[in-house]
């Protein structure tokens, strides 16, 4: 498939497609971070994760509308506020869902799977009722549009870089929370041994609520980023949940670096292959590669080396 291109053309194609994949990469990293935190923490596979992302996307959309109608002068900065609001919205919805539903289902993994799947349907219907079935798009402020030329063949999209930098900061923040803060220590202790964590004085229920809510909040931020590559509709989250699972499994669940590396691999493979092949062929190839690697490394890309 590469024959008809010269070497320098190929380099630029790879570079351009790579940059084009940056937002997808960011969305996948953020989604996977949230999903992995929730799964690692509570053994809950959050089937509604895509809907938490879409909540963030709708919040971003609403923020953009409010700014363009009432605060047009400040429109160029709306995205920052939108991300924060998206986080908060999904965070509080997550905390509420944990409190009202999930905490009653711990130790019953299949039930949580069904329950969160049901939740995803409920949320989709809610979105449809509130926002309508039509997909909505946000207008991106001028300074984030366009791209920055590096060579005459290679251009870098500005919003891609912006979202990626933000994502890396958020990942760093998550890393600091998980490994440096007291909440993170408590979370990891609960992950390892819930009963024992309680017996050293950790309020495991509170830790669960925070973790679930933070995971959902990060999905909300992913939703903000998502508005730049797709249009927001009630079921748009469904398209991303499978890829996100893939990233988590491939990265070796509960490993931050693994998650980032695996999101990078998958989004880049996807984006590059899409240039040469059809979208579904690209997906098939990506999947096959992931399955192949998982057969060689069942723990995922990165696994901790300790005695168990």
């Amino acid at each position: 498939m590469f024959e008809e291109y010269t070497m320098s053309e190929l380099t630029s194609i790879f570079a351009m497609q790579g940059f084009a994949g940056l937002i997808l990469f960011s969305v996948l990293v953020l989604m996977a971070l949230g999903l992995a935190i929730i799964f690692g923490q509570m053994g809950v596979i959050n089937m509604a994760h895509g809907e938490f992302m879409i909540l963030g996307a709708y919040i971003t959309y609403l923020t953009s509308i409010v700014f363009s109608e009432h605060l047009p002068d400040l429109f160029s900065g709306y995205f920052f506020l939108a991300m924060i609001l998206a986080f908060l919205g999904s965070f509080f919805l997550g905390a509420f869902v944990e409190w009202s539903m999930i905490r009653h289902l711990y130790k019953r993994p299949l039930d949580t799977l069904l329950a969160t799947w049901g939740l995803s349907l409920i949320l989709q219907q809610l979105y449809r009722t509130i926002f309508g079935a039509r997909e909505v798009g946000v207008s991106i402020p001028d300074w984030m549009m366009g791209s920055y030329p590096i060579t005459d063949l290679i251009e870098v999209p500005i919003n891609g870089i912006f979202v990626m930098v933000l994502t890396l900061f958020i990942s760093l923040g998550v890393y600091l929370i998980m490994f440096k803060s007291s909440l993170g220590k408590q979370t990891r202790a609960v992950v390892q041994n819930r009963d024992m964590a309680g017996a050293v004085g950790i309020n495991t229920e509170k830790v669960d609520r925070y973790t679930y809510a933070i995971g959902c909040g990060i999905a909300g931020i992913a939703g903000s980023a998502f508005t730049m590559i797709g249009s927001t509709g009630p079921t748009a989250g469904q398209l991303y949940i499978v890829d996100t699972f893939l990233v988590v499994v491939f990265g070796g669940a509960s490993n931050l670096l693994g998650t980032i590396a695996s999101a990078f691999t998958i989004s880049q493979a996807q984006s590059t292959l899409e240039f040469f092949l059809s979208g579904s062929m690209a997906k098939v190839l990506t999947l096959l590669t992931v399955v192949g690697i998982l057969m060689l490394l069942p723990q995922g890309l990165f696994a901790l080396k300790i005695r168990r």
Partner: protein
Amino acid sequence: MFELKDYHVAYGQSEVIKNMNFTLNPKEIVAILGRNGMGKTTLMKSLIGMIPSSKGSVTLQGKELKAMKSHERVASGLGFVPQGRMVFSTMTVQENIETGLTSTKRNSVPDDIYSMFPVLQEMRKRRGGNLSGGQQQQLAIARALASEPSVLLLDEPTEGIQPSIIKEMAKTLKQIRTQRNLSIIVSEQVLSFALDIADRIIVIEKGEIVLDTPRDAVDESKIAAYLSV
């Protein structure tokens, strides 16, 4: 100060701890002896709230603990060192101890814990899971002490530990009792360790107390008979 009254614990229909009554005095060390499967671990886990009790009351300084979650019991003054240590294996030694600080206002490990267990200070950056069994035991004790308990519960601390280190552990525990003014309940199968450390010895058989005697009045052969099959 720590009191069990008509205390029962059951797994479903099968009652493992039956009608237990005893009072632990301040600064007292009580050894609970019993053969395999006699209910020592069940008793300990229920005291810390990992499994519910089915009947009776358990009070610490007059406060009823029965309905409390584990973390609330820790905040009320219980500390727990489980059978098999259960250190958090992927977390570092220091982090393991820090988890014990959750119920306190502190956020760094107090120096006296490290001076009690110098090995832990040396290895504080290593993962808990990579320590030897004896070192993990010290870590589990340090982690429990970090929550500043008034009653320390230890479940078979000598399991899988060589005799010379067992002797040292008895010394350390007695030292901890004096330094920190706490009471200790320790479950055991090793009679010599129990005699070494305890002020009072209780033998349980099928979940019931069959002997409760001060250390000084102990008839060793009688206890040995209970412990042999």
